């Protein structure tokens, strides 16, 4: 069993990890990092919970139980973002606003579709990592159960 110290640290770390992930995501366009690394960071935060508190506790965090579905939602979103410029008569994966146009700013945050694309990747990667490791941990639990009786 994990010690009280570990549990406390793990609990404390969850929120900062997630915030870091979001920061990496939205700042990715101007600084190192992108949807992919943000997704991994966020899922590492969740995985820490999984290791310390067990799977059942971790699955209380929204989105963890449906990780697999989430990944495919991300993929679909990315595909959709890639394809919808076709409807406007542009090439696949055209991002808006076009070069030279003014960008809506919110602080240093920029509203461009490329960031949305990154968000989709974020969701996909989060689903991938959490789903894969979660599946392995489930397999471990099952194996343990089989041995126990």
């Amino acid at each position, binding site marked *: 069993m994990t010690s009280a110290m570990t549990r406390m640290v793990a609990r404390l770390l969850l929120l900062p990890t997630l915030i870091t992930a979001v920061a990496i995501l939205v700042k990715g*366009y101007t600084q190192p*990092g*992108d949807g992919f690394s943000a997704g991994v960071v966020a899922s590492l935060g969740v995985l820490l919970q999984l290791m310390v508190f067990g799977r059942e506790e971790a699955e209380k965090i929204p989105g963890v139980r449906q990780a*697999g579905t989430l990944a495919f939602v991300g993929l679909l979103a990315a*595909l959709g973002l890639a394809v919808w410029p076709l409807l406007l008569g542009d090439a696949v994966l055209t991002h808006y606003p076009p070069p030279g146009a003014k960008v809506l700013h919110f602080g240093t945050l920029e509203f461009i579709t490329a960031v949305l694309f990154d968000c989709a990747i974020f969701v996909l990667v989060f689903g991938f990592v959490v789903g894969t490791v979660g599946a*392995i941990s489930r*397999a471990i639990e099952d194996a343990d159960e089989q041995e126990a009786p």
Partner: protein
Amino acid sequence: MPLVVALLSAPAAAAFGMLRPAGAAPVGAAFCALAFGATLWGFASGGGAVDVAWAPSWDLRLHLELDGLAALYALLATGVGFAVLVYSSRYLPLHLEHQDRPLSDGTSFYFFVLLFMGSMVGLAMAQDLILVFVFWDLTAIASYYLIGFDSHDPDSRASALMALLVTGVTAVLLLIGAVMLYAAHGTFSIPELAGRVEPGPLLTTAGLLIAVAGLAKSAQVPFHFWLPRAMAAPTPVSAYLHSAAMVAAGVLLLGRLYPLLQKSDVLLDVLLVVGSLSMAVGGVLALTRDVLKQLLAYSTVSQYGYVVVMYGLGGEYGAVGASFYVLVHALCKSALFLSAGTVTEATGSDRLSGLGGLYRSMPLLAVGSGVAAAGLAALPLTAGFFKDELFFAAALERGPVFAGLAVFGAALTFAYTWRFWGGIFLGTSDAEADRTSGVLVLPVVALGGLTLLGGIFVGPYLGLALAAGSDSLRAPADVVAAYHLDARPENLMALATYGLGVAIVLSRPLWSGAAGALSRLGERAGPERLYGMGLRGLNGLSDRAHRAEARDLRSRVAAILLPGGILAGAGILVTPTGGTYRVGTVEAGDIPLLLALVPVAVAALTTTFTKRHVTLALVLSSAGFVLALVYAFFGAPDVALVAVLVETVLTLLFLGTLRLIPYEVLHRQAGLPTEKRPRKVFFAAVAGASTFAVVWATLSRPAPERSVAEEHLKRTPEAHAGDAVTAILADFRGLDTLGEISVVALVLLAVLTLLRGGRLR
């Protein structure tokens, strides 16, 4: 507009079928009727065309047009489709009940029938070769599922595969022909091509390839063997696909491309020969078959032989006659197929020898299918009479030899049609018929009625055929069909046909031996056997390759590494390399990079002699982490960040997997003596050495041109980005990223399946 309705109908029926299995048929039939109405209305109001650029850079256009030819085939597909759907709403539940299958299995049936209908309508309207190809393959796919509907039956599956392979492989020829035409004339559009092509070897070759695709689909000799096999499908499928839709697609292609084909005499002669052969082979074989649907299948082969011959004969009578023939044949043949299904359903027998005298118990069906049979046999007062009149007229234009051939073929038709109908309904037999639902009889009567109507008021039918024929000819066609009570050649030929037909029927004992011998010869040495041999040969080849792989997995790896290394080495040896290898300089700034590289190499080497698995995993991950450091020194913070994160997750995965596999199993591996070590070291050394040579050679010679990266870097601000790497990933080379995340999602799917599979066990 009709196309939209037709294409929508399949998903709509499927959705309803999922809610309530019984709901699929009415909804499908309603959509079918709607599509029929839309086509009729669209054609009556002068047709319509859609022509939008689809992918302009590849010259692909979404070019659909509801011209005469399209209207003819679209009306057939939707009209006969409607009759068939009504019929199967009663037939299919019975069929499923016989096989102890749940009613919900029927939903997929309706889905694919309607999908077929939709793609057939699309095919009819397509004016662009690529579009034709797309719809063509859609019909093939739908037919695969329909023929293999009884998927528990190996025979049914094999037949479905055969139909798919024969029509699918030849469809590739269609594509090749289309691309050849495009390469020469710069367009896929059929009307434009018709204006541009010149007679010559190119047209002949391309036309031949396309014609082969059409002939295979229409089950012409020597591709005819798939059609009788495809009779394994439920009867409504046979009625639909093999009278009005699937096989009609083949001649539709011929009709659509006729403006091109008719410019080459060679092609027309090929059509003539293939058509006459099919006519004869199909007709003779139809006379020998005992199973009802087999008889009808061979009759279809022979009937489409006529159509092909008519296209081969050419001229006004040929083109119009072919279209008229397809129309009438579809009505009659689907009625006959459906009556075969009803008879089998009522008596439980699907063979002529077990049937007879049914006119007493099923008078309505006897009349309905009798009219259809009369139509097929070209008796007066049915639309069928005119199909033969046009056929004779076309043959007469070419000369007495063809006229004789035509009479002979028509007489064969007369004979086997008589055999079919007479064998079921006339004579005496102890076959007993259960009462059948009216739904199983009415479509037959309706189709028969349409045939009869065409015999009395031929105007609308002929009008449709004229419109279709003029589209094939690209010139207005004017052909008159009417009854003439005089001794003109066509009438004499018809009389000769009836006489000869009766003679064939009466003289059955004389020729049945010879016909049987021909049929056996076909089975022994026919193309079907060739197909079987080809399939078995391919399968044997794959088996042998698989066995070689399964027996010796590791030497296969070595077998790839070693020749790969040798080839790369040889490539380097023969390349002039004088002075190209550069050692490079080590500057002060590179020292940290060097220091980081050393542990990576050491860690990699360590993995080769680490025994314990956990240590191995940790050494691997340490190599990964130091590598991330290396990336950072390369001025790649993005890569470094991702590498660190990925390495973390990968380490977790490695340790998790190790935890899953019991210690003893792993320990057994760790304790194994290393056998053939020198050999492996040698292979690894060869691999390493050739990698070294390749990498060194590449790194020594950076491309002298300006890099595209400079452009990327320059344009990063335009993409509203600061980090060039992210901009490349999300914007400039976004498709790469799209591919990458698709891989990730697929891997997730596979991992979840694999792990869950282990749990469910």
